[in-house]
């Protein structure tokens, strides 16, 4: 059976159900019922899946849904998933390697390079890679620059899809809850770098992520993301504007702010994501978190692993566009 005919058949079935539903309402109203009662009677014609999603909607309007301590809302994330799936499959044609290196159970810290000036699409695509390629998929949480949580609309959206304000306490708490915590140690220095510096890892802060991993006994999974640097090629930083609005940087790309909102559409580069072997930290005692030497050593090891994999994957990917 070929795809289009199945699709066409199911579409005509939905249309038929819709027509039957409207027909039922009309019959009910003609029989003297009020429109609402008529609609109730006619609803039996609706397909089961539609009835179910209406039930879910009614439940959500009454507050019957689950949020975790950080506001992650799995139903919401699943509803937003098709959009990110489109970006993953069609727009950026992501190839993910080694997703099985992410532990299937328990806590783990995912450490990745950070790029893409305007929106953490890299976090979304790593999430997509885990959800699509991992044998036991689960939703990771990711650290979001705190500034985003002071912005209307963006703040609740980030929370609902798994964003957590970037604070070491939050990271520890997520890991203590045996979840996956995705961090970007480069922070705003990574996202706000110019196009000429692409794929050159910035300083990894003060190694705070290693301290947290040591203290919570979480393995570290380095991740190299290739492709995210080309989606918004940043040619300059409007530092004056950034200072005025309190943002860490304001990117100027060939299309933004020149084309206005259209300039926010990311360019369709080709992506590769590689999950590296987890770094086992169980050999170190939790007190090692106080030892600067150990922390810097591990931090540097993670950084070098990611930098090496970035070069490998850049070669494997070939040209960014096309």
């Amino acid at each position: 059976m070929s795809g289009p005919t199945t699709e066409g058949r199911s579409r005509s079935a939905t249309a038929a159900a819709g027509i039957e539903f409207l027909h039922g309402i009309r019959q009910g109203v003609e029989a003297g019922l009020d429109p609402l009662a008529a609609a109730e009677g006619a609803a039996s014609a609706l397909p089961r899946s539609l009835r179910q999603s209406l039930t879910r909607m009614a439940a959500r309007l009454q507050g019957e849904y689950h949020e975790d301590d950080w506001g992650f809302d799995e139903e919401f994330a699943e509803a937003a998933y098709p959009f990110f799936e489109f970006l993953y499959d069609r727009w950026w044609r992501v190839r993910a390697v080694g997703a099985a290196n992410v532990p299937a159970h328990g806590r783990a810290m995912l450490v990745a390079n950070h790029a893409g000036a305007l929106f953490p699409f890299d976090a979304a695509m790593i999430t997509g890679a885990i959800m699509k390629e991992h044998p036991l998929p689960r939703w990771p949480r990711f650290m979001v620059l705190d500034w985003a949580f002071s912005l209307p609309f963006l703040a609740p959206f980030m929370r609902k899809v798994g964003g957590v304000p970037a604070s070491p306490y939050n990271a520890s708490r997520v890991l203590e809850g045996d979840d996956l915590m995705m961090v970007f140690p480069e922070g705003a220095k990574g996202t706000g770098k110019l196009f000429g510096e692409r794929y050159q890892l910035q300083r990894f802060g003060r190694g705070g992520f290693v301290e947290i991993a040591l203290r919570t006994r979480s393995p570290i999974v380095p991740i190299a993301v290739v492709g995210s640097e080309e989606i918004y090629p940043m040619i300059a930083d409007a530092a004056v504007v950034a200072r005025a609005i309190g943002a860490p940087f304001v990117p100027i790309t060939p299309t933004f702010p020149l084309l206005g909102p259209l300039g926010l559409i990311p360019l369709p580069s080709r992506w590769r994501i590689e999950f590296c072997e987890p770094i086992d930290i169980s050999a170190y005692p939790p007190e090692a978190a106080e030892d600067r030497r150990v922390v810097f050593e591990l931090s540097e090891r993670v950084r070098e692993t990611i930098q090496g994999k970035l070069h490998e994957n850049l070669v494997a990917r070939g040209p960014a566009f096309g």
Partner: protein
Amino acid sequence: MPDGRRIAIAGIAGHWGTELARRLARDPAVEQIFGLDTRAPEADLERTEMIEVDIRSPVLSRLLPSTGVDTVVHCGILWYPEPGKPARALHDINLIGTLQLLAACEKTETVERVVVRGSSAIYGCEPAGPSFFSEEMARSFPLRTRFQRDIGELEAYFENFARRHPALSCCMLRYQPEIGPDLPTPLSRYLALPVVPTQLGFDPHLQMLHEADANEALRVATMRPVRGAVNVAPSGSISLTRALRIAGRTELPIPHPMFGLALSRLGRRLGIGDLYGDAVRLLRYGRGVDNRRLREELGFEPRYDSVAAVRDFAKRGAGRRLTPVPDLVSALTRLVEVPR
């Protein structure tokens, strides 16, 4: 009977002071309760001796020693104006009152424990903050509102007092805002509005403490205080949107720069005035605190978590719905469930 506890409650005419006295009166381990306030509480309290005194006045230092109390509970810290305690006087009542009360405790040789019913406002409402503040994270952000600065100053006095009197156990309770359908608190009244103004594009995560847990935690802390600060909060958190949906209220999103003005207009009608400036930030960024110390060290397990507290609030206040939304929802539910 030398074994029974002798307890003084400052601010007994307020809601929480009265409730505490009522609970303690039922406890056989309590010998005598003294209530300090400028006016008599509305309810009749048994086994409670009223002492009419303004806690801001130095007379307190002469009166308190004569009572021979072993525990002093300070319920007189105000978040918002109350009858007879106007907005202008809050700063004085909160700061000078606490100072005088602590001075009186110093003069009273029998005192062994001092418990202050404070506020978690000291942590602030910060978009960049930890989602759950633990006790040692106080003052990690600048104190932004008048009330926050008052609480900060007051806690500094109290810490200093505790340091100078190592023999006393001094306990600072940091309360998250309480809710209950009949509670005279601004947040409860806010949630009870038929149409609730919210800030467009923001959905703060809140911890709203069930009034029964608020009362019981204070009783437990009075009978067995621990040293230092303790967060009093339910477990978990809930988003404002979800809380309003559970309560069956209609949201009215207002662009956030105008929200403060709208709330103060509304505030005057609700009797909370402009002063509740903390509410604007609370309802924009939210605030969560860690209640591990409450559960493990103080040994009090809140009966309601954040979601259950809102559900109970909605259930007990159910008769007061005015909104069309629940009807829409029930119609939708009927629409899909009947024909199965």
